């Protein structure tokens, strides 16, 4: 496909599984795309897919020039094959130069398929996006367990496709609704659908520490006072974790135990409070992005595993931290 940019910048606005609203990352990307579109002097289109056209109004608040709704009963829920088929048909008509998607699980599920359908380049879950030259995007992608970042481009094929991680761009401010809305009914039949939903179990019924981005861990030093740990976790939008000592004592459930014989976690941030740091525990946080530890004992092995270590009594530090966080 020739490098044209008649169709401008497109952003795929993904709906949540229950169809209620758009994923925050879609809106974050829309915000960034608005800025890019201005820099490139092209138009921005938000593309959304679903059973019907109700959702358009919500997207207009984030300032796209156009909203394109693809509506069909067979598109009621995410199916990689059907969604790729519907979107590809529109791409072939409008020739956007760029297509940005959120790197959610369904977003990735769609993007990988769509990129092949369009025979174009896809750069996956970038942590930053830069513009080079006339319309060349460079997406920085972590690899090798996060130790190295690669800057990836799609020099020739169009649209250049990029998926963006949640939280990379800020949530844009809402404004008065702008942009026109076009609703299209794609030509689809049963054979375009690859999967059918049998059931859906909403999250919240089970704890999954392995996917938590933020974890607050309490150990022996909490003396059993997990109310404060839970409060801290809530304030940070994270999960509560624990050491074997804490679960043995019955202060928290066993499924919150982190370590070699418990859960291995990879959060972006973990606060390790009142934990000595035996190796059987620390292997459970080896992959954490940032480790902050608080312990009364300056010799505690946990400090060998922390980026930031505070030697001090847990209670006063936690109180001060809750106060400091509450100030926002």
């Amino acid at each position, binding site marked *: 496909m020739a490098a044209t940019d008649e169709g401008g910048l497109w952003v795929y606005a993904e709906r949540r*599984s229950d169809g209620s609203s758009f994923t925050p990352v879609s809106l974050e990307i829309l915000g960034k795309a608005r800025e890019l579109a201005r820099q490139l002097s092209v138009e921005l289109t938000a593309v959304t897919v679903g059973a019907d056209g109700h959702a358009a109004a919500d997207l207009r608040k984030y300032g796209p020039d156009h909203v394109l709704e693809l509506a069909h009963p067979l598109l009621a829920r995410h199916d990689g094959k059907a969604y790729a088929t519907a979107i590809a048909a529109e791409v072939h008509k409008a020739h956007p130069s760029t297509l940005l998607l959120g790197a959610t699980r369904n977003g990735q599920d769609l993007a990988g398929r769509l990129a*092949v359908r369009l025979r174009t380049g896809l750069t*996956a879950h970038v942590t930053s996006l830069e513009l*080079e030259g006339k319309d060349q995007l460079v997406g920085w992608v*972590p690899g*090798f367990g996060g130790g190295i970042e690669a800057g*990836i481009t799609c020099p020739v094929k169009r649209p250049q496709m990029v998926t963006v991680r949640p939280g990379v761009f800020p949530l844009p401010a809402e404004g008065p609704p702008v942009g026109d809305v076009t609703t299209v009914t794609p030509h689809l039949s049963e054979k375009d659908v690859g999967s059918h*939903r049998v059931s859906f179990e909403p999250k919240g019924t089970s704890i999954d520490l392995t996917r938590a981005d933020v974890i607050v861990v309490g150990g022996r030093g909490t003396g059993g006072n997990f109310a404060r740990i839970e409060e801290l976790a809530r304030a940070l939008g994270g999960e509560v974790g624990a050491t074997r000592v804490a679960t043995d004592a019955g202060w928290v459930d066993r499924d919150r135990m982190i370590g070699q014989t418990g859960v291995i976690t990879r959060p972006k941030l973990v606060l390790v409070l009142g934990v000595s740091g035996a190796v059987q525990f620390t292997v459970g946080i080896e992959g954490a992005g940032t480790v902050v530890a608080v312990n009364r004992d300056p010799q505690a092995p946990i400090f060998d595993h922390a980026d930031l270590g505070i030697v001090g009594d847990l209670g006063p530090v936690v109180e001060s931290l809750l106060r400091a966080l509450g100030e926002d």
Partner: protein
Amino acid sequence: MRIVVCLKVVPRPEEVKVDLETKMLDRAGARSVINASDLNALEAALAYRDAHGGTVTVLSMGPPQFEPYLRVALAVGADDAILLSDRAFGGADTLATSYTLAAGIRKIGHVDLVICGEESSDGGTSQVPPSIAEWLEASQATYVERLVPGKHGTVHATRVLEDGKETVELSVPAVVSVVVGSNEPRFLDYDRWAFAQSAKVLVWNEKELSGDPQYLGLQGSPTAVAGLREVKKAGRRHETLTVTPDEAAARIKTEIERTRLARS
């Protein structure tokens, strides 16, 4: 059920270096391992075969040095192994890689289920499984933790999404990627070593794959690496302080903000 497991051999992440002058990846000193979630994929395939019958073939794309790792997979329990190897496949991005793997799967023939790991520890794009599905025009389910047969030759896959777990019915042939840690990979069986060492690992090159050269290797890769930079310092910062609670709170708050968790 004829099951194919796509396996990738990756360098140990902590042993890969970036040559900061040439901005090139230096994998030469790095030892290799089988990508972690591919072991989960292999386990999912073997468990499915053990429970419901069928065969498990491991398929990989890479240089001849990957062969011993395929033999490890045979020792774990796979029935046979195929390596797609040719200079022409080299330098491939995910489009070209998925094209090549799909060509290999088509050559195997009559494949019902393709199981991959959710992502590899080197590139980490998680794009290859849905891309393979598209090349094969097969159905797909990504981020799966559980796979059971459905009625009339379908498969039920339970996907782990951000807001819950979705079970979908897939028509066969289907491509599935499994979440790392979704099962506990069985350890290799030393009684199978003799078989694993002596088994014939099929090696298919470009000619045998009869793929379209425009989608192979470097020339078939629409994306390119414009630059590289090293990110993580080796190990933890070890900044340990003895300060007042308020000062501690301020430092911790700064650290939290630094990890870019502006939203709760």
